[in-house]
């Protein structure tokens, strides 16, 4: 009996490899796409730009400027059609399993991203953790300009680190396919994506604004417009605001920072403020950290819906140009009030902008109305997104200076 059973089991086991369901593929036979760009095609629906890795052994000495990726553009009706066409002239089995980023051109984003998101979400090979970026300009331009990778061999790692530094600066944003998809489906929020651009090497031009405005505009750049020279040819700054699936506008770095403060994604950022009463001659540089997550409450009655946003922030003094003693005493409190006022103004302005210009609740305030309803249908029927532009908004900022840095007191000799 047992012998028979054992025999049968062995036979069954031996039959398993014969079923022909071989998923095995050798690592060196594959072509790994690291970056994909989606543009509008001329001949067909889309033009897809693939950046394929050319495997290079680790630690091998060679000239640093050796090309380690290959960029290929294919026009096709669909993303996967393009992938298939790619196989016809690349002697590797193309796979998207190591794709880290999908870059979509502004043009397509304005038209509507939903139909492009669908295959990305459905595909087994593309992870939902892929970064989804909207490029101000052409996607293939972006990929090609990004070739001179200064610090990294492969763009996947480069973008990984760039995206991770959004926590350090706050003026850039980290967005992936899943976030976009979730926001697209939610009745309580509208999607945002990270914005990137091709650097135009803008010359710094003399502005006719007041000094205070200049200081405030320190980070208010759209991708591609940062006045700079040298370095990589791409800019990662700001956000792309969507209404439903359509791109409405780009937010600059400054606004991105305020956006992240409201959503709680903000970790830290360096702010430059005009010193109170100095007419913009002196600035105070402050590293501001999130103290704890923002407190958002929504109160609704028949007449009015109010959104209350409380921000809790801590500051670390990095520089005080005037030499005034802001660390302690009434001066410190004054500075705190001054800065909270500036932040409150900035955040309120941004929220107002999304209400009146974009009609788009990118902050996800709608999610906080969810607890008013018993069922999903009720919540959907509430039609928050249509109500959002007419809500009253109250922003409060609780700001404390916690850390004067390595100096406990500013002395006049520091001038």
């Amino acid at each position, binding site marked *: 009996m047992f012998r028979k059973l054992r025999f049968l089991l062995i036979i069954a086991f031996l039959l398993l490899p014969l079923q022909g369901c071989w998923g095995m593929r050798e690592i*060196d036979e*594959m072509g790994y796409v*690291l970056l994909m760009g989606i543009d509008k095609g001329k001949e067909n629906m889309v033009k897809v730009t693939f950046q394929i890795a050319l*495997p290079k*052994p*680790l630690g091998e000495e060679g000239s640093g400027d050796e090309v380690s990726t290959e960029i290929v553009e294919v026009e096709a009706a669909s993303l996967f059609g393009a992938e298939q066409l790619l196989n016809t002239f690349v002697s590797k089995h193309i796979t998207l399993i190591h794709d880290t980023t999908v870059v979509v051109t502004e043009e397509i984003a304005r038209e509507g991203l939903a139909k492009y998101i669908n295959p990305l979400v459905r595909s087994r090979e593309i992870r939902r953790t892929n970064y989804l970026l909207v490029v101000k300009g052409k996607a293939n331009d972006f990929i090609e300009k990004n070739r001179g990778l200064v610090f990294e061999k*492969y763009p996947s*790692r480069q973008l990984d680190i760039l995206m991770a530094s959004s926590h350090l600066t706050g003026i850039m944003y980290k967005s992936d396919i899943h976030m976009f998809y979730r926001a697209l489906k939610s009745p309580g929020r509208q999607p945002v994506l990270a914005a990137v651009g091709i650097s135009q090497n803008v010359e710094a031009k003399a502005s006719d604004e007041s000094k205070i405005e200049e200081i405030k505009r320190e980070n208010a750049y759209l991708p591609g417009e940062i006045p700079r020279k040298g370095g990589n040819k791409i800019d990662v700054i700001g956000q792309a605001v969507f209404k439903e699936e359509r791109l409405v506008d780009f937010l600059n770095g400054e606004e991105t920072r305020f956006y992240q403060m409201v959503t709680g994604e903000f970790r830290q950022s360096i702010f430059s403020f005009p010193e109170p009463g100095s007419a913009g001659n002196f600035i105070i540089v402050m590293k501001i950290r999130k103290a704890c997550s923002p407190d958002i409450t929504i109160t609704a009655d028949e007449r009015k819906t109010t959104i209350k946003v409380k921000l809790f922030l801590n500051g670390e003094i990095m520089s005080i140009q005037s030499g005034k003693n802001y660390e302690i005493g009434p001066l410190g409190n004054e500075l705190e009030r001054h800065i909270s006022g500036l932040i409150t103004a900035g955040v309120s302005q941004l929220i107002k902008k999304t209400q009146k210009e974009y009609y788009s609740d990118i902050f996800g305030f709608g999610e906080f109305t969810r607890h008013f309803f018993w069922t999903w249908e009720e919540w959907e029927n509430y039609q928050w997104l249509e109500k959002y532009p007419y809500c009253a908004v109250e922003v409060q900022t609780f700001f404390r200076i916690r850390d004067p840095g390595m100096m406990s007191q500013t002395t006049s000799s520091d001038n």
Partner: protein
Amino acid sequence: MKDKSSFWKRLSQVFTFQDLKIEKGSIYDQQESMEEKKIPAQMTLKKPVRASKTPLVLADQKKQDSSLDPQKLRVSSCLEKNKGYLQQLYVLPKNKDIIVREFYLDLDPPTPALLVFIDGLAEKETINNAILKPLMVFLRGKKLENDDLITYIQEHLLPGHEVEVAEDYQTILEGINYGDTAVFVEGCAKALIVETKGWEKRAIDKPEIEEVILGPNEAFNETIRSNTALIRKNLRNEKLITEMIKVGARNRIDVAVMYLDDLTNPQLVELVKKRISSLNADYISVSSVLEQFIEDNPFCLCPQLLSTERPDRVVSFLMEGHVAVLVDGAPLSLIAPVTFFSLIHSPEDYYLRLPYGNFIRFLRILAILITLLIPGIYVALVTFHQEMIPTELLLAIAASRVPVPFPTIFEVFSMEFAFELIREAGVRIPGIIGNTIGIVGALILGQAAVEAGIVSPILIIVVAIAGLASFAVPNFSLSFSLRQRRFMFTILAAIFGFFGIAGGLFVYLTNLVNTKSFGVPYLAPYSPQVKTSPDVFWRGPLWSMEKRPPYLKSQDQQRQPNISRGWLKKVRRGKKDE
């Protein structure tokens, strides 16, 4: 069946003719031809004994030999007869190791006597001073009755510490074969067996398989008495029992079963003794052979007895309520029963302080997983689940694989095989040229294979780590089992990827759960779950191990009281211990 027997018949005939280079006219010629006529089919494949020049004393030796059964044969009162028996039993004078010394007891009248011992096994000094001298010199012409003679000699004359009186040849032969000296006296139907064991033996040495850094470093040697003594030296308790069982039909080997009488579960002792004494094998050479005869499941993937060469380890097991089995001639002791977890422990774990001990345990568990799974995981990752590898590493692996013309699985297998080859060769190679193995191995594995583009460098790291990890497994037998299983997991991974590894682990675990070692579930105390002292994966402080392993069902479950550090009672908060 018919075919089979005829085959063996033919084979035996062939060998009989080829193997025995018979000189015409010699005694062998006659004997063999005689036998051949009678029972050619039952001829065994005996190698010819070196021809003796001495003519045969007893012409009809062959016939008588078969009739002599030492179990039934009793000592005769006639010395000549006894001498004849001995000559037949030991095939004298062909057998040159056996010394038969004839002498006279200095009685009135002088009585002939003889003593028998094996040259080399018995200590000659003792025989000269403690047997021959008193018997030949100190009797001084006494008059004694024959019946009292043996008793008198035993009680008054032989200063040896262990003198037995025996009447049957079975006992006498066993004694002589193990280095004792037998004394026969004319007119007495009894013989004396005097303990004169004294052969050349290896001194107690350092352990070679299980070395520790902090702790005793003596190991067993090949003499069972030294080994039992080593255990006794470390376990000073009068309830430590050493039972001797003789095993083997033709070569009777002493097997010692040691346990603590008032601690070990008597049923367990019975079980071990029953298994050993029931053996009906021709010859049990060493403990590893005995292990294969008495283990529960010969097809299990893991060893079910633990063999150790360290007396201190045996003692710690005995104190837990295990049974130790020692085989004469083997420098190892077997411990029964064992669980999987005791195989992954090392005495060093306890000799080191708690954090260090736990650290090496963690390292070891990791090593077990690595040696078992790493090549499989590598194959699965590289051929199925490339999305799991970090992109840079993936591209590096891909780049290193570009010049390799073989599929990954072939690459892994050839490398694993080369490694096993080096390992096996390293064991078998004579020590003097042992160094070459390292050079050849390093060159083949590390350098040439990569440069020739046969394997990729990353694979060498994988194989080397797997090999290295297998050396960190403290039990040789377990390490062997893991090495072997590694190949299975590699094949499974090559066919099914991670799914195969998961399936393989499932089967592996099922097998382990299903195994018992002397009635104790192999994965106890985890499966079945029982409460036990903190010493399974992690070890707690030594004073917290208050209970003995419950699955042993020993007579005394409590190992130490709840507060074993007596000095703690005196300490009060805020006051110093004085």
